[in-house]
């Protein structure tokens, strides 16, 4: 059974249709990369899958209708890493990660051994166990990002939705995070992450979903999605794409000339 099954999903924000007829299914242990240019609808799709924005169409989590699930039920099935990394109060990193255990606890229950173990594992996994007593608001951007991902890992849901989790991370931590996601999927967790780094997406994801203007234009293994042709059409870039040991290598090189001309022509029509 798929962890996430979306069909005919549409959504509009402020009168603009931002998602159109999306169909997507994510199975157990899959690592899906959500790619597409700015404004393609990546974040909106993730939000819609969590019921954070109104949408039409079907969304099923673990075989159940999202709109019939209670908020607490939802939290036990899916964890979310938002793009927004604003932390309101100077709580400690450990307290922040422990928030991920909240959906598993009763209203007045204290932290059980399982909770402490999950928090500990998440701190280790994201390489922030040394920061545990620091105030979360004092962390650097990359450290904050890792703490927030650790919070979602501590939630131990079957499905992890992450909105641009690698943004702001240094190369070592980008690769480390990809490794964490791959380890998680090996253990059966499904991960859907939106990302802009096509090189990382190509090397690490099992499957890529390419969005353009609120529609899915390609869905498949990286080699099938990241073709020079599609990249030129959707992103308007030329890219160096080659198979190598350990996966696909994608390196955007320059703007595609045709793409720019098209855009200029488009501007003239609108203007």
């Amino acid at each position, binding site marked *: 059974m798929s962890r996430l099954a979306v069909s005919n999903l549409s959504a509009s924000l402020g009168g603009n249709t931002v998602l159109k007829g999306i169909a997507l299914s994510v199975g157990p242990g899959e690592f899906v990369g959500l790619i597409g240019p700015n404004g393609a609808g990546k974040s909106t799709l993730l*939000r819609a899958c*969590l*019921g*954070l924005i109104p949408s039409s169409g079907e969304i099923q989590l673990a075989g159940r209708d999202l709109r019939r699930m*209670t*908020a*607490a*039920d*939802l*939290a*036990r099935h*899916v*964890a*979310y890493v*938002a793009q*927004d990394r*604003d*932390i*309101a*109060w*100077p*709580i*400690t990193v450990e*307290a*922040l990660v422990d*928030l*991920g255990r*909240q*959906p598993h606890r009763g*209203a007045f229950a204290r932290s059980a051994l399982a909770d402490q173990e999950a928090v500990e594992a998440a701190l280790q996994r994201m390489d922030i166990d040394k920061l545990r007593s620091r*105030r979360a608001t004092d962390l650097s951007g990359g450290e904050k990002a890792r703490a*927030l991902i650790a*919070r979602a890992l501590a*939630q131990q849901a079957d499905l992890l939705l992450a909105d641009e989790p690698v943004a702001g991370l240094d190369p070592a931590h980008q690769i480390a995070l990809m490794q964490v996601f791959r380890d998680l999927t090996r253990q059966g967790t499904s991960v859907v992450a939106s990302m802009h780094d096509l090189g990382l997406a190509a090397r690490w994801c099992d499957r890529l979903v390419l969005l353009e203007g609120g529609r899915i234009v390609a869905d498949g293994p990286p080699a099938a999605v990241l073709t020079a042709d599609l990249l030129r059409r959707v992103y308007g870039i030329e890219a160096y794409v080659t198979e190598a040991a350990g996966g696909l290598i994608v390196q955007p090189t320059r703007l595609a000339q045709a793409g720019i001309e098209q855009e200029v022509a488009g501007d003239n029509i609108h203007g």
Partner: protein
Amino acid sequence: MTETARYRLLIVLLAILVTSLFVLSLTVGPADVSPWQGLAGLFAGDDSLIGLVMREIRLPRAILGLMIGATLGLSGAALQGYLRNPLAEPGLIGVSASASLGAVIAIYTGLSALLPLALPLMALGGALCAVLVVRLMAGADARPLSVILAGVAVSTFAGAMTSLALNLSPNPFAAMEIMFWMLGSLTDRSMTHVWLAAPFMVLGWLMLASLGRALDALTLGHETAASMGIDMKRVQRLAVIGTAASVGAATAVAGAIGFVGLVVPHLLRPLVGARPSRLLFASALGGAALLLAADILVRVVAPGRDLKLGVLTAVLGAPFFLVLVMRARRQMA
């Protein structure tokens, strides 16, 4: 010492402080009664003058100081957590201004002269109207910013109507009475006021106290909290109605007392590891301590001059607010 142990110690210390200030409040007043005589008179249950002064004047005053202070501290902590803003306070959602307007209407129309309970009842009605309007204006998306905007609009309107009543007041005594009432005070309150306010306050406390987990989750923002199983519509309902019931009742019996709800959570936040859930109970105790202390101060500093409690909290609170704003600006720069 772990954070949890430190939190427990803080609660115990605050509880001791509140108890001491409560007892001290009972022993301060214009009547020439020694502390020991007074406390003995309180429990004697006879009809002696001392017993009457203690039971009918000082006890309600101390109880109201405790309850109103706790209300202001708790609702301040809850609103700051809900709105994710350290500058939020109960007055922000329009409750205080609307409760004041209700009371002013009662004085202006002479209703309060006919029926003493009309004033607090009208004030409560004003607070409830404010909640209905704020909830309607804030809309279905339950975003904190819409609540702030709606609250500011309601506050401004209620303030304008209050000014209008003062402006048009045909009778200078009514205008005086309105002014005096708006300054906020615990002088000459009776047990009737306590019984009138208590049910609404307790109801509001329960609603606000149930927000702990939601406020913790809101540390990470509206969307993350919603993804963690927090029903944001329910949170908005509890925060707004809980504040209206408790602060509305407080304003109804004591007038507008500002800044306690702003200052207390801010002072205690570093001592509870900044966790919004822990700040709730600590701020309730801290608010009670601060208001009891302020009410003792107005009686000691200017005996016989009837220095208003709301004036004192504003005089001490406003400079504090300025420092807060300046520090927030420096952090943003």
